[in-house]
């Protein structure tokens, strides 16, 4: 830690400069994936399965291939089968066989919208026409549409070769069973005065990024390929495309385009290997862009889930035991975030006796992808509702029960070592002290709810280069696509270290050949890990600049001091030089200066958020209006507070959507019934209040600037906070997401009828 990192001396960090990518975005000049055009480009389209579960008996595409303008048709047979095992890819793991089968179905289609074939043609119209000429003969199989169906005895099996360690050599739809235990839950329940037990359900929901997936692939005669695409992880696209196509990783260059939202959903591949496969087959560049309906049917979502929670506490509200059973829909291939769910569900609390069972279950729905704090929101909806109920039984404030049981420095994390310094309690205290929480909420059918959430955040690998230009400006080059304002954060960190104006630092996100391996933009890791690399690269540049100054002043490098943006010589009285004054002299002092650093970042600091929401319910229609919402989140250190607030608001908005209206609706045959944004109802601006934010700063001891990730945790609390608010408004506990009007109306009507029923019984 250098002297410039003590709080009082920050010059740039903590300010709110205009983002460097802003002008290009608001003027429409920023280049997104679908904006790329190259000479001789073909257009690719995908034929998708009309069935949720079927065997492919045959595919006849001869008529499609004969259509003038069609250049190639590919099916699953054109992909190598791929190894059926998990292989490391950066810090992630993938199963090349499953990944390939998701890109193009092989023997079976496993969900409605599963890709079956792809066509490249000279225009999108012709490619679409060609799809209609492909004849696929299916043997339709019964679909498996819920975790209960999938886990039931005699359930139709999605993958005949899928096994789990517990069951041994038996076909199953359960890919994994994870268990976390501490203490003795039964003993813990015996100590409890109050016990609450409830079952919760949530539906699949989509990340809802506005920009659909896209890819433009170019394959040259020398076997070298370039892919332009919208992605959170260019290095993952490179690795996964190579794995799926059986190509050497180094033969592919991936250029990340400007990105129109990802939220975790753009950390895997769909079109990229397909476009490349078609480009290899035709020798021409191939561009592919999904429609909205394709995005909803065949990409993203995160898991629907079934969760049972039993929790007990003393009269005073001390939680003595928690037992949780959770099954998550993985979609068509293994890999739901249930592992993360088991580790996050109780993470804000110190609970002595815990048993958590999690099941990763395949169903005939799209393969799930990461979504902002994957797994945590479903789980928190369940646990945070039960904690609210315990607080009510104990007659204590719902924030107080959280503070009473809250995790602190030294509390063992459910799945690992004790926490270092964390800021959970501080987020609860911040809400408790807020004007919002202290205000009175008046009026009928109104209620206030609170809930908290946890997310790990991630470290992983990043590289950064800082170039000092001869005019004293600088560029910061990284490989982290910017989905949340991280370019500004990286520029600010470099500007802080180098004593430059942030406007004089240009942040650049580059391609996979132009920077060292950088893991995905995900896990809230960019400002933390890439920021750490930038910090060190800037320090490296600074050290080199000091050497040049020493050379100029003919003194020892230790005698050069950098303070307030200027180099001084401690031993002679040479005129101090600013970075730009020194930069001008670089050509005669040994040439350009480039600082660089790579990290495999350790010292990740988890994030906590606590949210307070006021609602008004129309009891006649079950409609919920959000009146007010405040979220407090521990950022560690807010490099650019406006973008931290933006992340907090964005996550909260998504959490509100998930709570109220977003859900995948399937018919009994497994067809997705709402694959448009008209019927997949994300909140619009009029559905949301101005989301008030309180940034809590408990510096992360593992980071030179105290940074924790901020991108994800704010999505976790809102569904539970809203459920708790609805309970206070109309007296019903909602245990299913979304709390859509029809569902809430029914719950209210049922409550009314049991109440009047009871009334009659008493009279009779």
């Amino acid at each position, binding site marked *: 830690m250098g002297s410039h990192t003590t709080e009082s001396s920050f010059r740039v960090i903590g300010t709110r400069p205009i983002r460097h990518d802003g002008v290009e975005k608001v003027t429409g000049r920023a280049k997104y994936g679908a904006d790329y055009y190259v000479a001789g480009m073909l257009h690719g389209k995908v034929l998708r399965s009309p069935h949720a579960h079927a065997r492919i008996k045959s595919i006849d595409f001869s008529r499609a291939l004969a259509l003038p303008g069609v250049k190639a048709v590919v099916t699953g047979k054109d992909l190598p089968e791929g190894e059926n095992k998990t292989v490391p890819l950066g810090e992630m793991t993938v199963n090349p066989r499953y990944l390939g089968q998701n890109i193009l179905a092989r023997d079976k289609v496993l969900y409605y919208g599963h890709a079956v074939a792809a066509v490249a043609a000279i225009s999108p*119209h012709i490619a*679409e*026409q060609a799809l209609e000429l492909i004849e696929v003969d299916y043997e339709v199989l019964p679909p498996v549409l819920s975790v209960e169906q999938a886990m039931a005895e005699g359930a139709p099996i999605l993958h005949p070769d899928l096994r789990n360690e517990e069951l041994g050599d038996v076909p199953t739809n359960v890919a994994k069973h994870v268990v976390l235990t501490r203490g003795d839950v039964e003993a813990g329940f015996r100590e409890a005065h109050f016990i609450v037990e409830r079952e919760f359900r949530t539906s699949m929901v989509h990340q809802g990024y506005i920009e659909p997936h896209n890819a433009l692939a170019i394959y040259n005669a020398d076997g070298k390929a370039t892919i332009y695409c919208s992605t959170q992880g260019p290095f993952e696209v490179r690795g996964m495309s190579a794995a799926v196509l059986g190509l050497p990783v180094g033969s592919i260059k991936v250029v990340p385009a400007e990105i129109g939202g990802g939220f975790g959903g753009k950390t895997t591949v769909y079109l990229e290997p397909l476009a490349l496969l078609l480009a290899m087959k035709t020798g021409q560049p191939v561009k592919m862009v999904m*429609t909205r*309906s394709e995005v909803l049917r065949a990409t993203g979502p995160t898991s629907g889930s079934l969760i049972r929670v039993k929790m007990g506490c003393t009269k005073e509200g001390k939680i003595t035991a928690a037992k949780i059973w959770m099954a998550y829909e993985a979609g068509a291939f293994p890999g739901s975030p249930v592992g993360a769910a088991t580790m996050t569900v109780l993470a804000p609390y110190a609970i002595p006796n815990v048993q958590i069972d999690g099941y990763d279950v395949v169903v005939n729905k799209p393969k799930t992808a990461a979504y902002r704090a994957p797994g945590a929101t479903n789980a928190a909806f369940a646990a945070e509702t039960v904690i609210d109920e315990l607080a009510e039984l104990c007659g204590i404030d719902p924030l107080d029960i959280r503070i009473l049981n809250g995790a602190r420095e030294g509390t063992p994390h459910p799945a690992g070592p004790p926490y270092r310094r964390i800021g959970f309690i501080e987020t609860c205290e911040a809400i408790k002290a807020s004007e919002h929480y202290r205000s009175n909420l008046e009026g009928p059918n109104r209620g206030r709810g609170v809930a908290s959430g946890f997310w790990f955040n991630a470290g992983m690998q990043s590289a950064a280069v800082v170039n000092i230009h001869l005019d004293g400006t600088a560029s910061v080059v990284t490989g982290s696509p910017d989905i949340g304002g991280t370019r500004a954060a990286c520029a600010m960190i470099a500007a802080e270290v180098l004593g430059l104006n942030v406007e004089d630092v240009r942040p650049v996100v580059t391609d996979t050949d132009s920077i060292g391996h950088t893991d995905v933009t995900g896990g809230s890791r960019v400002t933390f890990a890439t920021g750490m690399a930038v910090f060190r690269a800037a320090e490296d540049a600074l050290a080199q600049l000091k050497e040049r100054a020493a050379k100029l002043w003919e003194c020892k490098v230790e005698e050069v001091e950098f303070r307030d943006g200027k180099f001084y010589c401690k031993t002679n009285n040479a005129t101090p030089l600013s970075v730009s004054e020194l930069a001008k002299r670089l050509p005669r002092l040994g040439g350009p200066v480039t600082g660089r650093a790579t990290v495999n970042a350790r010292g990740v600091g988890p994030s906590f958020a606590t949210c307070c929401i006021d609602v008004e319910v129309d009891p*006649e*229609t079950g*409609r919920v209006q959000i009146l007010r919402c405040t979220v407090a989140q521990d950022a560690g250190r807010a490099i650019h507070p406006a973008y931290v607030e933006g992340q907090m608001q964005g996550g909260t908005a998504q959490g509100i959507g998930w709570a*109220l*209206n977003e859900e995948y*609706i399937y018919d009994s045959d497994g067809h997705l*019934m*709402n694959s448009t*944004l*008209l*019927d997949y*109802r994300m*909140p*619009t601006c*009029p*559905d949301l209040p101005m989301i008030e934010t309180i940034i809590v700063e408990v510096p992360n001891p593992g980071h030179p600037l105290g940074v924790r990730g901020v991108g994800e945790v704010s999505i976790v609390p809102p569904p539970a906070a809203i459920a708790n608010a609805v309970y206070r408004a109309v007296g019903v506990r909602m245990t299913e997401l979304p709390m*859509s*009007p*029809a569902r809430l*109306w*029914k719950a209210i009507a049922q409550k009314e009828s049991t109440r009047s029923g009871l009334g009659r019984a008493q009279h009779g």
Partner: protein
Amino acid sequence: MHEFTYVAPSSVEEIVQFLAQHREKARPFCGGTDILVQMRSGVRRPSYLLDVKTAPETRLFEFDPAKGLRIGAAVPCADVSADPAVRRYYPGLAEAANLIGSVQIRNRASLGGNLANASPAADTVPALIALGAKAVLRSVQGQREVPVEGFVTAPGRTILNADEVITEFVIPPPQRGGADAYLRFVPRNEMDIAVAGVGVFVKMEGQRCVEARIVLGAVGPTQIVASEAMAYLRGRTLNEGVVSHAAELAAQAASPIDDVRGTREFRRHLVAVLTRRSLLAAAKRAQANQS
């Protein structure tokens, strides 16, 4: 989306000539907020899109207290809901037009398109029927004026012939003691399609209702005129009990389906809620219109 030809006629005469020649192959369109979506999803594949709004007659907008309101079929909903005369004398129509989609959609979407698209959930159609509006249709054979009620015969089907175009709507003059209202239920605050909608018109003499019209949307294959509820209200004093009973009768008249937007049970319940609320709103307005 398939390839098609865009045609911009400069008069209704040109439109009807073109339609007479190409019939089903050509579709008149206005805002395109329905038909372009349908073409993109492959549901409709016209060879020609004929832009009605380029013919000036379809943009007419005239109000006369004695003759009533004439609105060109291509006038965007944003203009309809912002018009002072519509807001003053036909507030229910203004409400309905103001609910369609979002600002961007309302700047394109037309009343003609809303009706001709023949969706059971179309918002302005119950409001127009409640007002007793008529549609003016033109073809090379000439002109006919038909009530909006009965125009839609099934989802996506109307009495419009392949060579006909809607040119304008004619709405009867405002009546002393009369007023309309339109309410719908959607889960979000905008960009949504009615789960149920109710358009009403009532005419009051003192506390007494002398005429009532109740039209239900999104709860049957076409808009439904709740005649029993209407007959029940005639001559009665509009108190809570009477209005609630009428609302129950209206709910019975509905024949909703289960779909992604709502269940049968929920929709029927919503009809009662919306009928009650819209009757009360219209009655309040009507009373204010008696002097």
